């Protein structure tokens, strides 16, 4: 066996499309320090390890993105998908390396050099940088790749000599063990190998010894092959071209049924499905359906799909339907009564179905919920949020608040110190004095009152305590 390790050194920054090649300086930050910087940033004088504040002081227009382990992990999986073209045996070495068993592929690729060239070209095409090292064991390949040691090690014999030079830091051990090794005066793997194995294991742990042995091929190092994640794609053809949406329904029912069957088998649900209506000489029409929480109820999906169908006007004939779903979420099965035919909906279900209907009909950002924020200043005491989130906590004990709040307070005319709005206002219940917010530059200092108009409407008004002491309308009681 021969292993090739691809170490994607720049993966954190490459996980953001266009970051590496952007023209403006950009850094990936972690724990308030620079983790990686793109070329314009390096040119400005920013270095990895520098504090973010210091980096910002150097470069005014610096963009900064937080490091996200999940994002990097997803990118690594995508790279694994790319790598299978070179060998079927790909395994992940998180956080940013892949191991490829290439022994079997050499013949196919016409030799090692041509394989490496192919890798280099392909990497360039997808816009990623990697160091490639080759060794008879995966651990050795990984260590060599981290050290930028790219000359291939083909035989076991050379392995010892090449590994001996690698510094202990490459093993990425936890600080306590690192300290212990440092205390022994060992700086390279070669130094560690010079220590009798039993003594080493006793003092520094069996795990370390095992790693060294695996690197040197003295211990088995099985790797799990990476498998692409499940996805669903199915297609059904129609007997004849049609522009009638009714005729498409049976086909969709079939596809949805198959999908949901799969989902049930995998105990999973979907939040998004994509349906394509294929036309003979046009690109397919796409219908997208989204749900607020994962589900696998074919009726619900069907209903949402129907809504989309209604809105789309078919001008050309459809000859085939495709249904795709590419992200499965874990979904435990609902406990079922033996006699239950699965049609019962809980009140919660009804609520989510309503949200799904509205969102899919009106558009995803047109349906929002309100939440109460902990703030004295009324204009900041509320915000929009996603529907379906947890219900708000018990509202705080406040004096009566209007049901409607104006987006901006409206100035009122005042005569003789009395405010007017469709006539002179009578003030009640006040003042409630609100003075807060000096720390973010939005200090307010106001006296709030409930006021009645001559017509009997109840308003929420305030008078500024500073400046010209003007009157404003801020809200309406229902």
């Amino acid at each position: 066996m021969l292993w090739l390790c691809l170490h994607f050194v720049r993966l954190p920054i490459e996980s953001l499309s266009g970051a590496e090649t952007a023209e403006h300086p950009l850094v990936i930050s972690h724990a308030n320090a620079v983790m990686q910087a793109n070329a314009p940033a390096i040119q400005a004088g920013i270095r990895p390890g520098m504090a973010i504040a210091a980096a910002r002081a150097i470069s005014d227009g610096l963009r900064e993105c937080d490091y996200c382990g999940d994002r990097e992990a997803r990118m690594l999986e995508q790279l694994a998908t790319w790598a299978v073209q070179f060998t079927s045996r790909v395994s992940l070495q998180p956080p940013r390396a892949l191991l490829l068993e290439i022994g079997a592929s050499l013949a196919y690729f016409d030799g090692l050099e041509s394989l490496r060239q192919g890798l280099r070209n392909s990497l360039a095409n997808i816009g990623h940088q990697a160091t490639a090292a080759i060794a008879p064991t995966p651990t050795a390949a990984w260590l060599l790749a981290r050290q930028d040691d790219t000359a291939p090690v083909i035989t076991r014999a050379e392995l010892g000599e090449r590994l001996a030079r690698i510094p202990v830091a490459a093993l990425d051990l936890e600080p306590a063990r690192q300290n212990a090794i440092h205390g022994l005066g060992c700086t390279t793997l070669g130094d560690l190998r010079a220590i009798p194995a039993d003594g080493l294991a006793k003092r520094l742990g069996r795990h370390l010894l095992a790693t060294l042995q695996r690197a040197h091929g003295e211990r088995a190092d099985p790797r799990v092959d990476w498998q692409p994640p499940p996805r669903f794609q199915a297609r059904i053809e129609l007997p004849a071209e049609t522009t009638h949406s009714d005729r498409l329904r049976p086909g969709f029912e079939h596809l949805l049924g198959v999908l949901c069957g799969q989902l049930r088998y995998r105990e999973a649900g979907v939040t998004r499905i994509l349906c394509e209506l294929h036309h003979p000489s046009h690109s397919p029409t796409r219908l997208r359906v989204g749900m607020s929480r994962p589900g696998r109820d074919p009726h619900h999906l069907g209903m949402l799909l129907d809504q989309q169908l209604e809105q789309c006007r078919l001008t050309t004939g459809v000859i085939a339907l495709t249904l795709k779903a590419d992200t499965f979420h874990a979904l435990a099965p609902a406990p079922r009564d033996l006699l239950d035919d699965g049609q019962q909906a809980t009140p919660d279900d009804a609520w989510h179905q309503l949200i799904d209907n509205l969102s899919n009909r009106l558009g995803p950002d047109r349906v929002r919920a309100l939440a109460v924020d902990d703030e004295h200043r009324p204009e900041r005491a509320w915000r929009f949020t996603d529907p379906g989130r947890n219900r708000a906590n018990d509202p705080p004990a406040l004096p009566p608040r209007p049901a409607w709040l104006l987006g901006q307070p409206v100035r009122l005319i005042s005569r003789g110190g009395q405010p007017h709005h469709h006539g002179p206002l009578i003030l009640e219940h006040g003042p409630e004095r609100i003075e807060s917010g000096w720390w973010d530059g939005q200090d307010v200092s106001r006296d709030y009152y409930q006021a009645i108009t001559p017509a009997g409407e109840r308003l929420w008004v305030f008078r500024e305590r500073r400046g010209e002491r003007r009157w404003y309308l801020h809200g309406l009681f229902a």
Partner: protein
Amino acid sequence: MQQTRPAPRYAELHCLSNFTFLRGASHPDELVAQAEKLGYTALALTDECSLAGVVRAHAAARKRRLQLIVGSEFHLDDGLHLVLLAPDRAAYGRLSALISLGRSQADKGHYRLARSHLQDGVPGCLALLVTTPRTNAEAAAWVARTFPDRAWLTTSLQRDGFDTQRLTRCQMLAAEHGLRAVASGGALMHARGRRALQDTLTAIRCRQPLAALGRALAPNGERHLQPREQRARDFPRAMLAETLHIARRCRFSLDELHYEYPEELVPAGYTAAGWLRHQVETGAARCWPDGVPERIRQSIQHELALITELAYEPYFLTVHDVVTFARSRGILCQGRGSAANSTVCYCLGITAVDPSRSSLLFERFISRERNEPPDIDVDFEHHRREEVIQYIYRKYGRHRAAIAATVICYRPRSALRDAGRALGLDTDQVERLAGSMQWWDGRQIHPERLREAGFDPDNAVIRRLLTLVERLIGFPRHLSQHVGGFVISRGPLSELVPTENAAMAGRSIIQWDKDDLETLGLLKVDCLALGMLSAIRRSFELIERHHGRPLTLASVPAEDPAVYAMLCEADTVGVFQVESRAQMAMLPRLRPRRFYDLVIEISIVRPGPIQGDMVHPYLRRRAGEEPVDYPSDEVRSVLERTLGVPIFQEQVMQLAVVAAGFSPGEADQLRRAMAAWKKRGGLDPFRKRLLDGMAERGYAPQFAERVFEQICGFGEYGFPESHAASFALLVYVSAWLKRHYPAAFTCALLNSQPMGFYSPAQLVRDARTHGVAVEGVDVRYSDWDCTLEEAIHNTPTLRLGLRLVHGFGEAAGQRLMRARDSERPFRDSADLARRAELDRGAMRALADAGALAGLSGHRHQAWWSVLGIEATTPLLEPATVQEPAPALPAPSEGQDLVSDYRSLGLTLGRHPLALLRPRLQQLGYRPASHLATTGHRRIARAAGLVTNRQRPGAAGGVVFLTLEDESGTVNVIVWKDLAERQRHLVIGARLLAVVGIWERRDRVRHLVAGRFEDHSHLLGELPTRSRDFH
């Protein structure tokens, strides 16, 4: 809504100051000033379960003639919110006792009280129940029952929309339970403008940024002392009038508190005066066995008469008792300060300055005019002071003795950190700004510092930060225990002032600090710690053990010329008081030859004499460069001993007496005005009297003016002569020890750390330079303490002790010592670990320190053996597994050096700069010894580890650095401009290279810096530490 009637009278009965830590946003005196401005009839200060701020309020109210009511507010376990006020002395005592009880039932900084604790009704106190819309009838009933005829219901108005409900509920409950309703403010600050600061305090208290607090912040700034007109608009007249009824019932003033001494000091059959006289005469007979001189006898009479007149006998007896205890245990102690002016104190053994050899001025210590109790500070060996403290607690009981508090206030750095966090600023940046603030930056934060830390001074957030910080500086944060000031009383202390738990177990503090005690005229005994006393006692013990020569402070041979010769050479590392840079520069110029010269040496190197321009004239006259003359015989008698130049506070006082006709008591007032004139002004009345008095007696106006200038220069920095004399004794003894027994002295200094000016590394280096052989830490030979080992030729070797090993604890050290057995030496590291029960961490610390070299070889081998130790139970003999020892390479010299410094803070190997010398040579830097031969005012280059930094307040911004290399040290002077320009290097560099001008004049040598280069990177990981001082 105009009021045409005059505003009604009002007394504020519920008000918190910033002594309710992190809630109140105004100082007590600000509240008092504002209350007076608003025309309040009275103000009650009611901090939460505390009387910590009342003395300050009292002092402010006294000046302004505002009635101050003493009280406190409480939140009981069940949520009841109660304000208690003290109308008379007895009620005050009960209130104070209640506060002490509450504090004793919780951790430091907290309190716990339930209804059951108030079951007796806290006799005498007036109770105000603070009601909310939700207060239930049961609470009102309980208050009415528990405080018959002295309970009210009160509410404050917060303009949060619920005021009407509050007021209604309060009045309703009052009517239902036959109580009266009274208005109050619940003020947290003196003016609305403190709203931002009050919000910030909330953020600091909740440990959250302001933006995250939401409604935990107050909705508005209403909780301040409101104008009476506003009160009249908000409250019914009856509730306002009730505040006056309550205020009238309160007649208590803190002036009524006076101090009562413990009674057990005076045995039956004696009065206090008689017993004191008896003790003094016994002591005098002991000090002068050949007969007490007449002059002394007269002093004793004079002093005792004044002591009796002012009724201070018990105070002296208290201190005498403590000192006698210490002596009985062999604990070295010595009185310092103005007390050394007292013959009585000398006879009682409290001080060590012999009145027959010096002229003392008793009025410097106690005077009629001062109207203040005396202040006796006693220094004890610092490591044994705890025994003295426990003696006091044992003898008087924890309910009668407690330590004075120190109020820990916000300083620039802490204020920056907390305010910055509250504003939500990036922690790293705030840390950087806080860290770059040196103590000398004062309260102003220079725009440059802001820019350096990455802030824009014009940014709105930053400006907010600075405003907050400026206000916050000086705000109290918490109480801590004073260094050693004890208050001891006859009755329970808690009826005089509340006590609370200190952070240290077994200690309690009172809620007042020493300024408060002084304001009220309460006495305290200061038991201070002095490291040098410990070092001297240890030296004496070592010398007795190893040289068979018993010594005491009194029996050290006096006036040894060899000792004075050493002092003239400024060879004084480790010597008390004269080891600093400034002192080392002065010694070769002053050239002390006898004891009194030491008294002068200590006193003259201080900002007072420097600013008053006494130093140069004195030195010139001493060197014979200037004639010494006196305008009169009286002046000669005062100034002769200092060649006509006034150096001591007492001399100024004596001049005022003999030359200007002041009485001794008035002269003492002059001295006190001198000390405080910078803060409070007020030397002018004295100026006139002084000039007139001297003119009357025929002195030239120039002479009088000059004396007055010198007085101004003295300010608060001049030394009392008595104090200097006490210290001079320790200077001489420590110098004598260093000269004659350097190994023992260094050993004692190392065992008494932390103390002194120099680090262990420098002390060891200095000892080796003087020929002391030093051996490293070795588990086979080292004790916990450093010890002396007998070597050949009767010169002992200094063996470093286990205490120097970082990360190795004393308990482990004791176990190791017990396990060591001359019959059965340790076989190997595993054997050591097993027998001494040392865990991995302890063994690693020893390995890192090279202390296992004797058992396991060099550091890497030692690590190997330590890592291989398995935890075995003591019962089992370890199965000695023979495993092959690997051939581990030895550490390089540089690596060993780094480990030495990291683990011990010093090295016995080569100096780090010796390793770097080839590199430094290439850059043109020569060793310090080379500089000794460089001519005056030549350009010179030096490089070394920065071991000391000093920026004396009186030196006008000049920084003094000491650089150390393998051949010695170089003193560097950095003028203010350069210090500012290359501030980062001056503050932060560890290995500094200097190019400058070399100056040498009369044995005083230093390098005036022109330019710096930072070569700290050459040191790599070598950890170095510099001692930075004022």
